[in-house]
C-alpha cells in the first residue's frame, strides 16, 4: 500500500456554494502499471476526482501522492499527467501530428526527436500515416485514438481517461475497449478511467472503485466486486439481482421473507441479519427434486432474447428475475407455475456481516 505508485488520500471536494461535498473522503491507491476503473452512476463525483488528480481543480482537502510525494499543490501544467477528455478536446487549428507533438513542444523536445516520437505514437494507436490530417477529417474513433496518442507521447506518470468510450457507437466501443486495454498494457502506464458503464469497467479494469454519491463504496477486482459486494448499492449497481433480507438461523441458512429459507455459503454468525442476493443468470429451472433453495411462483412476464429467456416470477410479494438458457422444449407460459432453484454457492452474500 505505502509503496503504491499512486495514492489518493482522503480526498474531499465541496464546490463553492454547494451544501454537500461532491467527493467525500475518498481514498484508494494503485500499484505501478495498474488500470483502475472509477465506476458509479452519473453525478457521483467521478469526473471531480479525476480533475482533482489532474490538477484542473483544487481539492478542498486531502492529498494525491505520486511515488510518495504529494503533488496536490503542483500546477496542472507541471504535473506530467495525460488526460483523454470525453469529447477528445483535440486542437481544431492543428493537424493530428501537431496535436500529438504539442506536449513535446511544451517540453522543449528537439525537432528530430519530436517527429520520431510522434510517428511512434501514431503507430501505437494505429493511425500510421494520418499525421497530416486535420482533426475534422478523422472519424470519432480515430479522433479518440489521436487523443490517446497525444496524452501518451509525453510519457505521463499517470493516464486519466474520462468516459473514453461514451461518444462512440456500440460496435466501435467494443473495439476501442480492447484497444485501450491493449495500449495500456503495452505501455505499462498507470491509468485511471471513469465510466458509468459496468460492462466497460468489468472488462477493462484490473480493479474497480465503485462510487455512490461522492463516497467510495468498494474497491476490488471485478470478481470481488461482482461476487462479494460489500454494500447493497454495489450489489445492485453491478449486475442485476434481487436482494432479500433475513436472519441467520443455522450455519449457512437464513430465514428470509417471501422465500422462507435460503441456503448460502459464507460466514455469518447465528442470529445476525443478512442480505442475500439472487442474480438472474444463476437461477435454474428445477429438474430433480431434493435440491435446496427451491422456489415456486407464477410467471408474470416472459421476454425471449434468443440465447436466453427472461422470466419474471412472482414469489410471495417479490418478483424474481431469471435468465435461463433457451433450449428445445423449454418455454414456460405466462401464468404457469414454475419452480426455480439456485445453488447455495451462487447466492451472493451482500456486505460484511457484523455479529
Amino acid at each position, binding site marked *: 500500500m505505502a509503496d503504491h505508485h499512486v495514492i489518493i488520500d482522503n480526498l474531499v471536494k465541496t464546490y463553492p456554494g454547494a451544501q454537500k461535498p461532491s467527493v467525500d473522503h475518498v481514498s484508494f491507491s494503485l500499484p505501478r502499471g495498474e488500470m483502475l476503473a472509477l465506476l458509479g452512476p452519473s453525478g457521483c463525483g467521478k469526473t471531480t476526482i479525476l480533475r482533482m488528480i*489532474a490538477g*484542473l481543480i483544487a481539492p478542498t482537502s486531502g492529498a494525491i501522492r505520486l511515488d510518495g510525494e504529494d503533488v496536490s499543490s503542483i*500546477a*496542472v*501544467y*507541471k*504535473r*506530467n*499527467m*495525460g*488526460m483523454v*477528455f470525453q*469529447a477528445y*478536446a*483535440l*486542437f*481544431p*487549428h492543428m493537424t493530428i501530428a501537431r496535436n500529438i507533438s*504539442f*506536449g513535446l513542444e*511544451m*517540453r522543449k523536445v528537439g525537432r528530430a526527436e519530436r517527429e520520431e516520437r510522434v510517428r511512434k505514437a501514431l503507430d501505437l494507436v494505429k493511425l500510421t500515416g494520418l499525421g497530416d490530417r486535420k482533426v475534422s477529417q478523422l472519424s470519432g474513433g480515430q479522433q479518440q485514438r489521436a487523443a490517446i496518442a*497525444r*496524452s501518451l507521447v*509525453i510519457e505521463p506518470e499517470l493516464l486519466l481517461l474520462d468516459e473514453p468510450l461514451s461518444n462512440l457507437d456500440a460496435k466501435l466501443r467494443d473495439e476501442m475497449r480492447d484497444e485501450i486495454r491493449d495500449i495500456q498494457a503495452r505501455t505499462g502506464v498507470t491509468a485511471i478511467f471513469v465510466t458509468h458503464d459496468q460492462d466497460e469497467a468489468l472488462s477493462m479494469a484490473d480493479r474497480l472503485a465503485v462510487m455512490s454519491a461522492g463516497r467510495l463504496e468498494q474497491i476490488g477486482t471485478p470478481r470481488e466486486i461482482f461476487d462479494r459486494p460489500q454494500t447493497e448499492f454495489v450489489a445492485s449497481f453491478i449486475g442485476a439481482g434481487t436482494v432479500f433480507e433475513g436472519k441467520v438461523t443455522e450455519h449457512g441458512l437464513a430465514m428470509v421473507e417471501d422465500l422462507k429459507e435460503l441456503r448460502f455459503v459464507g460466514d455469518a454468525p447465528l442470529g445476525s441479519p443478512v442480505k442475500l442476493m439472487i442474480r438472474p443468470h444463476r437461477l435454474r429451472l428445477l429438474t430433480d427434486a431434493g435440491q435446496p433453495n427451491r422456489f415456486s411462483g407464477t410467471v408474470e412476464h416472459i421476454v425471449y432474447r434468443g440465447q436466453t429467456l427472461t422470466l419474471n416470477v412472482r414469489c410471495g410479494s417479490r418478483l424474481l428475475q431469471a435468465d435461463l438458457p433457451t433450449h428445445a422444449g423449454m418455454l414456460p407460459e405466462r401464468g404457469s407455475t414454475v419452480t426455480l432453484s439456485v445453488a447455495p454457492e451462487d447466492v451472493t452474500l451482500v456486505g460484511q456481516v457484523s455479529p
Partner: protein
Amino acid sequence: MSAAATAPTATSSTSAASRGILLMLLLPGLVALVITFLLPLIWLLRASFTSSTMSAFGGGDLTTQSYSTVLFDPFYWRVTWNTLVLGFNVAIFAVVLSYPIALFLARTESRFRGVLTALAVAPLLTSSVVRTYGWMVILGDRGVINSTLQSLSVTSGVIKLTNNSFGATVALIEILMPYAILAMLSGFGRLNAQLEEAAAMLGANRFKVFTRIILPLSLPGVLTAALLVFVLAISSFVTPRLMGGGRVFVLGTEVFNEATVTLNWPLAAALSVMLLVLFSSIILLYQRALRALEA
C-alpha cells in the same frame, strides 16, 4: 397499391407548394430590398455618370467627368487616404480594446455573464450623435480634460483634442467598440474551456495556452470585428463631421459636402461609388484571410 402510387406524387406536390409558400414569404422582403437598396444603387451609379445635378434625376448626356475629378484631383486622393487611415486606426484600437472584454465575456462562468454582455453593448441604445456630443464635452477646448489640466496648472494653454482627426478617431473607437465586442463574441465559437485544459495538461502554462490556443482560435472573430469596425468607420459621417469641426476630410464628409453644400450630385455619387469599391475590396481581402485561417 394505389396508396403507394400516389404517395410520391403527394409529397412532391407538397414540396412544390411549400416552395411556393416560401417564395410568397420572401417576396415582401425581396420587394423592399429592390426598392430601398437595389434601385437607389442603380440610380446612384447612373447619377455618377451624369454631368450636372439637374440631369442626375434623368435625361442628359452620360460622362465620366466626375470620375476623372475623383481619380485625378490630389485632394480626393488625400481624402481617400485620410479615410483609410481613420478606418485602420479605429479598427485596430477598437479591436485591441474590445478583445479583452469580449474574451472575458466569452469565457466567464459568472452568472452575471448575460447582464455584463448587455452592459457592454448598452451604448448602442444611445444615438451616436449624442455620444459624439459627449466626447465633445470631454475633449473640447473647454472640456473636462482641458479644464482639469488647467485648474491643476499642469498646462497653461489649450491642448487641441477636438476639431482634428484625433478627436474623430477617439470618438469613433468608443462608438464602434460595442459592435466589435458583439462581432467577436459571435466569432469565438471555437473557443472552448476544455481545449485550454487539454493544453494545460500537456504542459502549457497560461501564457502558452493564450498564444497557442486562445489567440489562434479567436482570430476569426477578431478579423470579423476588424472588418465590421473598419467598414463602419470609413462610412461614418456624423462623428468625423462633428469631432472634426469641418477640418477632417473623409469620404463620408465629402459626399455630404458635395451633395448639400456644393450641390454637385454627380461628384457625390462618384465618391459614394468610390466608397463602395473600397468596401468590396476590403470584404474580398477579409474572406481570403478567413479562409486562410480556417484552412
